[in-house]
């Protein structure tokens, strides 16, 4: 473990001794690489050093591919010089959530049942990144199979919140968000089934975007709730998110639910102009259960947008309380089927001792899956079982239709919906898991967005009294990523850079925590 932080950091700018390579946004780093101020190897090494220094305390990564990343760095450097890679993110390192398949690099979904699984293929989103000259640093920790909101259900131990190591980073993309917040990676990929990008982004003070369903191919994303899952970017700011989405979004013939979208030029929406933009705040999101400081953050963003010429008003979205039960029925049902393939036959964990086939199945699965995953598989199997399908599954799909309709009505009146990303800031480790239902309720503002297939972006606003970040969410109509990107960008211009001062404090904490662990 590196104990001397300053030795590991690379000062690159005279007159700004404190600014590290790892502090840069992905686009800033990409520019430096393009202008040959920084080599790809230097950029990658800086991230690897940061990971070596911080991740022992943070637990953001499940796998770090140091050798692979450095070898790839040299390859990409040549590719940049030859003109093969000329995009804005060429040479910029990235961390990938561990439920997204990476050829030759272990992909565990933070589960014992896939503890040794090395895919022989890459997810389409990963291939898209590689075509743009990305260098994969490693795989980030998550709630097991993306089931959870705290990254505590990982079989490999929890990830901690870089703003306060006693707190969770949120989940399920907690590893990706923590890694970006702690500057271990300039950006990361996450996945979002019920809020798994937006909620941890909010808890970690980073920006996370969940695209419209069908925008990023799901091929190679290990399925949790197939009708809800989407891969999306996690980065330091809105510009990065737009640029990353531009790279990973594609129409993929391998994914039947992939949508052939014409306009994928998301960065063209990066303009500080929200004049006339109609913004609605669901008043039914602001009631009981919402933390006052979070409510204040939402209002702060509303004020900024209003000042910039947007028309902001509250409205009644309706059906809010039905999203969570509908979600848990649909997601659990799909998960119970999606996770049936993990059986000890073709890959992953097989129990050591068993008697016969069915005992092998049962033991491998019972030993291989964690508690939360088993809970959802049981619930999902139950709601699909004979006699219950109509009452639970079809009822949930009908509710989903109504929720979609209520959003359709809202988007007739508004361009963008402004909402909290989570009712509270990051809880302490161990607080949430004791009561699963309470944990599920934490997803109340994010879940309906997945049910309706909408895009949403979570942007940091400020910190609470305890110094933990608060983020808000901007929700758009289907295929209207550009509107939420523009609104988020405009807000961000008023807010200014979110990272530096707070993270500087966090670095000290990380170093001391790393020392303790070391």
């Amino acid at each position, binding site marked *: 473990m590196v104990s001397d932080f300053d030795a590991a950091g690379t000062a690159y700018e005279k007159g700004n001794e404190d600014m590290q390579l790892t502090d840069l946004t992905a686009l800033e780093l990409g520019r430096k690489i393009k202008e040959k101020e920084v080599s790809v190897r230097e950029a990658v090494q800086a991230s690897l050093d940061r990971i070596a220094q911080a991740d022992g305390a943070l637990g953001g990564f499940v796998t770090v591919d140091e050798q692979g990343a450095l070898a790839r760095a040299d390859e990409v450097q040549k590719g940049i010089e030859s003109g093969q890679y000329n995009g804005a993110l060429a040479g910029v390192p990235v961390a990938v959530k561990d439920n997204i398949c990476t050829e030759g690099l272990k992909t565990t979904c933070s589960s014992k049942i896939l503890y040794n699984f090395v895919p022989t293929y890459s997810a389409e989103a990963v291939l898209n990144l590689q075509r743009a000259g990305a260098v994969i640093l490693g795989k980030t920790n998550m709630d097991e199979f993306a089931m959870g909101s705290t990254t505590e259900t990982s079989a490999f131990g929890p990830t901690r919140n870089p703003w306060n190591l006693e707190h969770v980073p949120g989940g399920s993309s907690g590893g990706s968000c923590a890694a970006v917040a702690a500057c271990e990676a300039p950006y990361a990929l996450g996945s979002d089934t019920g809020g798994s990008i937006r909620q941890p982004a909010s808890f970690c003070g980073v920006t996370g975007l969940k695209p419209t369903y069908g925008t990023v191919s799901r091929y190679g994303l290990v399925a949790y709730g197939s009708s809800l899952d989407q891969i999306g970017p996690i980065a330091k700011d809105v510009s990065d998110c737009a640029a990353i989405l531009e790279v990973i979004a594609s129409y993929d*013939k391998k994914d039947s639910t992939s949508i052939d979208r014409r306009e994928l030029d998301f960065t063209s929406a990066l303009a500080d102009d929200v004049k006339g933009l109609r913004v609605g705040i669901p008043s039914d999101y602001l009631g009981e259960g919402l933390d006052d400081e979070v409510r204040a953050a939402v209002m702060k963003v509303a004020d900024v947008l209003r000042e910039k010429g947007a028309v902001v008003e509250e409205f009644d979205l309706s059906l809010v309380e039905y999203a*969570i*039960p509908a979600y848990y029925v649909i997601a659990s049902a799909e998960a119970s089927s999606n996770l049936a393939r993990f059986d000890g*036959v073709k890959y992953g964990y097989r129990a050591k001792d068993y008697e016969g086939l069915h005992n092998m199945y049962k033991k491998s699965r019972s030993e291989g899956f964690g508690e939360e995953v088993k809970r959802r*598989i*049981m619930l999902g199997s139950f709601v699909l079982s004979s006699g219950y399908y109509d009452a639970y599954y079809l009822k949930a799909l009908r509710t989903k239709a109504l929720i*979609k309709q209520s959003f359709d009505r809202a988007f007739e009146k508004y361009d963008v919906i402004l909402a909290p990303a989570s009712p509270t800031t990051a809880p302490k480790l161990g607080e949430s898991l004791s009561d699963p239902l309470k944990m599920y309720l934490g997803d109340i503002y994010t879940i309906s967005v997945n049910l309706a297939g909408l895009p949403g972006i979570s942007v940091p606003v400020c910190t609470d009294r305890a110094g933990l970040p608060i983020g808000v969410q901007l929700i758009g109509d289907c295929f209207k990523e550009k509107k939420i990107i523009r609104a988020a960008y405009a807000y961000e211009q008023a807010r200014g850079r979110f990272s530096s001062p707070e993270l500087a404090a966090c670095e000290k904490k990380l170093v001391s925590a790393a020392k303790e662990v070391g």
Partner: protein
Amino acid sequence: MANIISDETIEYVGILAKLELSDEEKEQAKHDIGRMLDYVDKLNELDTSGVEPLSHVFPVNNVFREDVVTNEDEREKILANAPAEKDGAFKVPKTVE
């Protein structure tokens, strides 16, 4: 709790899901599923009569492949992660009695 999950139900769902729960886990599962279902029962407040179940959010249909062979022999890759293999096949406990 309105929804009482019986031992038989937990046993049955365990067979469906191929999960073997300890007695303690079974008790926990009974409690958890019961509580979740109480919560899910909230959906019954909603009148959904005449509402079509919505599987796919977008009305996309007819996504096809042409009938052309695109894959080559990838056996080594396919077997690379097998917990047990023999003669190019996945090895499992015997399936016939």
